């Protein structure tokens, strides 16, 4: 994940702010179209994040052996 790309949360928050701005009907057409484009981009980004996650359960490779008590 590159540092310049927003995290899922950031992307989702920005997307929702854009929707809010668009729904308020205050944005002039030029801005509305720019917002829409940006919103679509953010939506794609969020979906990609979700689709990229491949659920897996792993065991911690290096068990913490040192802390295991000796058997009595």
């Amino acid at each position, binding site marked *: *994940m590159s540092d310049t790309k927003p995290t899922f949360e950031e992307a989702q928050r920005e997307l929702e702010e854009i929707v809010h701005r*668009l729904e308020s009907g205050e944005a002039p*057409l030029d801005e509305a179209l720019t917002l829409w484009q940006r919103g679509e981009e953010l*939506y794609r980004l969020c979906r990609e994040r*979700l689709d990229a*996650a491949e*659920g897996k359960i792993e065991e*911690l490779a290096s*068990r913490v052996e040192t802390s295991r008590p000796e058997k009595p």
Partner: protein
Amino acid sequence: MLVSMKVEATDYGDRRVYSVGAFNRGVSSWLGRLPTVWVEGEVTELRRQARWASVFFTLKDPADGACLGVSMPRGQFDALRLELADGDRVHAYGRPELYEARGEFRLRALSLERFGLGDHLAALERLKQKLAAEGLFAPERKRALPLLPRRIGLVTGNDAAAKRDVLTSIQARFPPASVLVGETYVQGPRAAGAVIETMRALWSVPGVDVIVIARGGGSFEDLLPFSDERLVRTIAESPVPIVTAVGHEQDTPLCDLVADARASTPSLAARLVVPDLAELLQRLDRSRGGLERGARRALERERRRIDQTHERLGRAPRLLLERSRSRLEQTAGRLKALSPRATLDRGYAIVRADDRIVRAGDAVATGDLVDVELAKGGFGARIEETR
């Protein structure tokens, strides 16, 4: 009994040599000068027999496993009626002693007290006050949990229940979740240390954005490691947020107070660390719908505005025409009011002779022919008389 005595040695040249018995007596006498103290530990390997003058047991340090043999006069031990079991924590009052016959060092206990629940609670309360005073439990220290952790670290025992509960709840809520499980001891003398090391190991793995510490219910003593001061401090210094799911609702080990979030059950812990995928997708799709609607609405609003302007533009010439027409009609009305016809309507007549209007009697002569125009029609006439 320890009695200070003179220790005999044999000299071989310049080498002074002690017999084993003399050496032991010497050490024993030196040990005998040490003070009587209280020692805390857990009782293990309790050995008591009716024919023995003393009972024997081992005191074990729950923190690091260090051991100390203890002997106690059987009569005194029995009189206390402690009914000790392995693992019970006690305070033993005694002094160091060497069992001379075997050169074995141990604690000679004179008195023994069970270190009970009340004492634990008091000690725990003191620790709680101390850590609270340091600000470790302050709400402003709590970090927000990531909405979508790349990886979830799970510290759990190898007991199936708690681990399975967390894993199945996480997977049910958010199937694409990645979990890194650190299995370790969550009970017994070394649990605190083991949990600490497992946490450290987990947070060093790249991508681990949150750690869950899960342990099923247990007795007050079972959960004591989760109030361990080192464990609490380790949670406080963790670079990633920590969620605890230890014991049941009514238990509040100190780790719960320092953790960034606390869950009373493993499935609630899952709810905290992963979002509901279905809900998340719905919310995303709603946002996208709003995006389209919003953009379309902005477009339609602009189009409507253009259309209105256009319509006004089309209406402008017609408006001009109508205005001209009405002005024309007004003029026509005024014109009509001024026309002679209106005068004829009132009963006047126009008399013309040779197409000239006759305005005076002497303009014509008897016998002339004139033309008379009326409001309706007219007639020709011959002048009979002039005046």
